[in-house]
């Protein structure tokens, strides 16, 4: 049952292919790292998320060429409130990495990665729909699952489970 404690030291983890590439490109882009339960998480600086994704996708030695998922976690009431989470998969190397971007709760905006992976389209629309995070540069940022005229963002923690009615 014993789970080894998470590793959060960049120096210890820099052999990881995704982290190594990012550090080589721009050490300032990496805010924090965590290796926990065999899964690698890298916290990315908000303005460079699109470049980071493009960089990891096009890395010739170790391409993370497949975007599995985009989602979000609301850590309300602590700040930064939102964490947008990208799960990347390297199909040739069979390896995963998780990217995170932390956003302030007041007006959460982040750059869309649809220009890197067109498949991010629905995932980002879903996050917009359920969390109210705006993705700049998204081709069609409309509600995906909820009705167009719905008020509020259901997956935020301050939204009651039973709804308002």
């Amino acid at each position, binding site marked *: *049952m*014993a*789970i080894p404690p*998470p590793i959060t030291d960049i120096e210890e983890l820099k052999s990881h292919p995704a982290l190594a590439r990012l550090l080589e490109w721009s050490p300032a882009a990496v805010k924090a790292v965590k290796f*926990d*339960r065999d*899964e690698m*998480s890298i916290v990315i600086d908000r303005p460079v998320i699109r470049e980071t994704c493009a960089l990891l996708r096009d890395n010739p030695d170790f391409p993370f*060429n*497949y*975007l*599995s*998922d985009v*989602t979000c*976690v*609301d850590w309300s009431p602590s700040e930064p409130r939102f964490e947008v*989470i990208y*799960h990347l*998969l390297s*199909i040739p190397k*069979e390896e*995963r990495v*998780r990217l995170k971007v932390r956003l302030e709760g007041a007006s959460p905006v982040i750059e869309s990665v*649809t*220009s890197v*992976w*067109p*498949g*991010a*389209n*629905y*995932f980002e629309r*879903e996050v917009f729909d*359920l969390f109210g995070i705006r993705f700049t540069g998204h*081709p*069609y940022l409309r*509600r*995906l*699952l*909820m*009705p167009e005229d719905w008020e509020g963002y*259901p*997956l935020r923690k301050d*939204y009651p*489970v039973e709804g308002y009615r």
Partner: protein
Amino acid sequence: MAHLTPTPVLDPAQDKTMILNMGPQHPSTHGVLRVLLEIDGENVVRIMPDIGFLHTGIEKTCEAKFYQQVVPLTDRIDYLCPLTNNLCYVLAVEKLLGLELPPKAQWLRVLMNELTRINSHLVWLGTHALDIGAMTVFLYCFREREDILRMFEMVSGQRMMTSYFRIGGIALEPPLGFFDRVRDFASRFPSKVDEYENLLTGNPIWGMRTKGVARITAEDAIALGASGPTLRGSGVDIDLRRDMPYSGYENFKFKVPLGKEGDVFDRYLCRVQELRESIGIVQQALDGMPEGPIKADAPKVVLPDREKMKTQMEALIYHFKIITEGFAVPAGEVYQAVESPRGEMGYYVVSDGTAKPYRVHMRAACLANLQTLPTMCEGKLIADVVAAIGSIDIVLGEIDR
């Protein structure tokens, strides 16, 4: 890759094209998918799926439940492969807890999971053929599916919403006679697949309706996040069961069927081959089924046996505590992906150290696969839209959650 980003604004004022509304109650949309089609004569100019009619807020509901209470909710997501959903969720929580499972539990899970895959592919094959106009296959497929549903009923008491897996093991030992029944099915089933193939694979009408239709290249499929047979039909060699094994899949030998053209016919062939591979895995699981317990040794997480509860004070206390206050899961996050019949199904579970999940997110394979529809259909004939929708095997319960 600009062509992959749909321009979804349909403009009726231009008056050159017609806008056609297909669904949400159209029989060939496999649920409640609404598709807006802009057509110029018989050609599709633009296609825009509209989803959300089945949205039930399962992700939100999960946050209000104990970990073990989420298992029955996962059945309802992809209702054609409930056991795959169960498996993906329990694997994620077990990874958070750091639980090690006994081999018999793992093998039973693999066995049930492959039966589920066959079940799901049979529904797909029957309805897909029905959409294109081959009525007979539907009846044949549902005949075998009935056998599988009866097996599910044997082990779990339910035909569809099985909830058979538990965090840390399996709910019950399979009843007497179950393995004989599966063995009997496994020996009969390959000849049944021959029957389906006799009806379709060499059939010239089937060929004309599927070959070269709704093609997608490997690059486009990867960029759009497609997975499963939709991706492998285009020749991308990835199967999570083989490449990133979970639940003991590394002990099984099977081939991963690949397509070349990325058309409807190749996706059909991939799934039909998978039927044969799955029954092979079932056979291996039956032959090598280990002996031993079906639950992990973790009294704070796994419910005790009924017998122990009636005789041992401690077991009774643990039972009472698990039922009334759940069990705390160490803080952390896990993304667990499994190969569902439709592709990469992923559960992202975040724990804050309490007995309820802080966040559960399901990565729906169908949601990403649905995005390939415009690439497959635009500029092609409207009659092929139905074939394309069938070939990506969508389940709206999973898309909308």
